[in-house]
C-alpha cells in the first residue's frame, strides 16, 4: 500500500508571484517526484483544503496557481513565504502529450494553469504547440507570458480591454485550426468555454482531451463527490483529464455540477 502520493506532506512556500487576486505558490518538493501536466494536488492551508492543478514543475520546484474565488482560496492567496502548506499528490491522470506531434491547447480562466505547464512540457519534448488563453483581465494571464516566443503560436484574450484581444478565446480556434496542422486539443477552463470550443471543433474531427473540475472532498477516489453522471467516473481518480469520446457520454458535462453536499447546480 505504499502509495505515497496519497499521503499529505507539508512543504514550505519558497516563492510567491502574482497578486492578491491570483497567486502562484512555489514549493521545493524534490526531484524524486514525477509530476505531469494535468495532474493536481490537494492543497491544505491552515486546515482548508482544495484541489489545484500543477502550473509549474521544474527541477523539483512545484508551482500552484490559485485564483481567489471563495472562502478557501481567499485565505490561500494571502499565504506568505516560509509558511507550510500540506500537499497531497500528484493526483489523477495527465494529458496525453506523447502520442501526437502537434497540439492546440486552450486555457480559460485559471484553467490556463495546467495549460501553461503542458505548453512548457510539449516544447521540452520538441512537439508543435499552439496556445489560446482567455482570462477576465490581463493580470490573470500575466504568469504565462513567458510562453510568448517559446511556443509555435500563442494568443491571449480578455473579457475587458486590458489585453491585446478583447473577446473569448474560442473565437480564435478557427484561425488556428485552418492555418496549422493540429493533431489533438487539450482543454481546461469553464465548461461553457469548453462546450463552445467543442462546437467550433465539430467540423474538424480531431482528438480532444478535457480537464474537468468538480467539487472534491477527498481527491483520492473514495468519497464520491466528484463522480460524473451517467458515466460514473471519478474526476479525481479516473480524471481529471478525459477524452471527449468518453465525456460526451456524460449527461452532466456542460450542463451541471454538484455542490459540497451533492446537490445539483446548473451552470
Amino acid at each position, binding site marked *: 500500500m505504499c502509495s505515497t502520493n496519497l499521503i499529505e506532506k507539508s512543504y514550505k512556500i519558497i516563492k510567491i508571484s502574482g497578486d492578491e487576486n491570483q497567486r502562484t505558490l512555489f514549493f521545493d518538493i524534490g526531484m524524486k517526484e514525477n509530476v505531469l501536466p494535468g495532474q493536481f494536488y490537494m492543497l491544505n492551508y491552515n486546515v482548508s483544503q482544495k484541489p489545484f492543478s500543477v502550473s509549474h514543475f521544474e527541477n523539483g520546484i512545484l508551482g500552484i496557481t490559485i485564483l481567489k474565488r471563495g472562502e478557501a482560496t481567499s485565505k490561500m492567496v494571502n499565504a506568505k513565504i516560509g509558511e507550510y502548506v500540506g500537499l497531497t499528490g500528484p493526483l489523477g491522470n495527465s494529458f496525453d502529450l506523447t502520442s501526437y506531434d502537434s497540439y492546440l491547447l486552450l486555457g480559460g480562466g485559471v484553467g490556463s494553469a495546467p495549460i501553461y505547464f503542458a505548453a512548457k512540457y510539449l516544447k521540452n519534448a520538441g512537439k508543435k504547440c499552439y496556445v489560446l488563453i482567455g482570462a477576465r483581465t490581463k493580470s490573470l494571464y500575466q504568469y504565462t507570458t513567458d510562453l510568448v516566443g517559446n511556443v509555435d503560436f500563442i494568443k491571449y484574450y480578455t473579457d475587458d480591454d486590458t489585453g491585446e484581444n478583447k473577446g473569448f478565446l474560442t473565437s480564435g480556434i478557427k484561425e488556428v485550426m485552418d492555418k496549422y496542422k493540429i493533431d489533438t486539443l487539450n482543454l481546461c477552463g469553464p465548461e461553457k468555454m469548453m462546450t463552445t470550443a467543442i462546437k467550433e471543433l465539430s467540423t474538424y474531427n480531431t482528438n480532444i482531451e478535457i480537464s474537468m473540475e468538480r467539487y472534491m472532498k477527498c481527491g483520492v477516489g473514495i468519497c464520491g463527490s466528484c463522480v460524473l453522471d451517467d458515466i460514473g*467516473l471519478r474526476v479525481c481518480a479516473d480524471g481529471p483529464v478525459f477524452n471527449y469520446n468518453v465525456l460526451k457520454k456524460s449527461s452532466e458535462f456542460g450542463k451541471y455540477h454538484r455542490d459540497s453536499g451533492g446537490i445539483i447546480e446548473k451552470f
Partner: protein
Amino acid sequence: MEKLHQCSIKFGSLTFKRNGVLASGILGVTGHSMASVANKGAGGITCKSISKNKRKGHPTPVVQVFENGLINAVGLSSTGVDNTNLELEIVRKKSDSVIIASVFGGTKEEFRETIELLENANIDAIELNISCPNVASEFCTPFACSPTEASSVVKEVRNSTKLPLLVKLSPNFPGIGNIAKACEDSGADGITAINTVGPGMLIDINTFRPKLSNRTGGVSGPAILPIAVRNVYDIYKSVKIPIIGMGGVTNFEDAIQIIAAGATVYGIGTAVMYHGVEIFNKINGEINEYLAEKNIKYEELIGIAHQI
C-alpha cells in the same frame, strides 16, 4: 468491459447475484456512481448514510491517508431522504445490485422518522448506522456502544419497515458479540461490521495541526483488517443472522479471512482508493478460482474458522 463474476448467495431473505458490497460512504453520493460500481462487479451497494434532516458534514480536509490506510471525518453530510431516493432509483434502473440504504439519526426517533420517509423507496434493505465515530461530539456516544442502546434503536424502528434491517456495528466498544445478539433479539435481520476504528488522529510535523478539520477521524483500510476479522468472528459466534463483513479487505485473501470468520458476503470501502472499483470483480474471480482449486462450495467457507 470485463465479464462479471456472477454467483448466488442467500443473505437472509435477500439474494446477492455477485459477492462484494460497496461500503457506506464510499462513492455513494450519486445513483450513477453506485450503479457504476455495481456494473463493474459489486453485488451490493450501500449509499452514504442518509438522515431526515439535511446535514453539511465537516469542512475539508475530511480524508487523510497514511501508510496503512486512512482516517476520515466526512461527517454525516446528507442531502436528505428525497434526494437520496431519486439517486437510489437510478441504481435500481441501471443495475441488478442489492440496494442498501444506510440510515443515520441523532436520536432513536430521527432513525424511525427517516425510515418512515423511505417507505416508497426502491431499495432492498435498510442499514442502521449506529456506529459513526466522527460525530461523537455532536451526538455523544454512538448507539453501538452497548447491547441496551443498540437494541433500543432496533426496537424503535423495527415496525416502521418490512424491509430486512441490518445494523452497522462499531469495533470501538467491548463485547460486540453481545451487542449483535441484542440487535438480533430485537428484530435485526443482519449485521454489518465493522465501521471505522478509533478514531485516530494524524498531526502535521511542520504546522503541528491535526491533519483533519475535525481533528480526529475513523481509521479504515489495511490497518484494521485483523480487528475486522476478530469482530466478525465474535459476531458469528453470537448470532444466527447473516453478516456483511468489512474492514480493511483489500485483496482476495483478506476476503477469504473475513468470510472464514463468519461473513456471508464481504464488503469493501477503502480498497477502492488503492485499486479502483474493479477490485470487486477481481476478488470475485479469485474467490471462484480458489473455491474451484479447493473443490469446496462457497457456503462451506462461511464461518469455517469456527469449525476447526
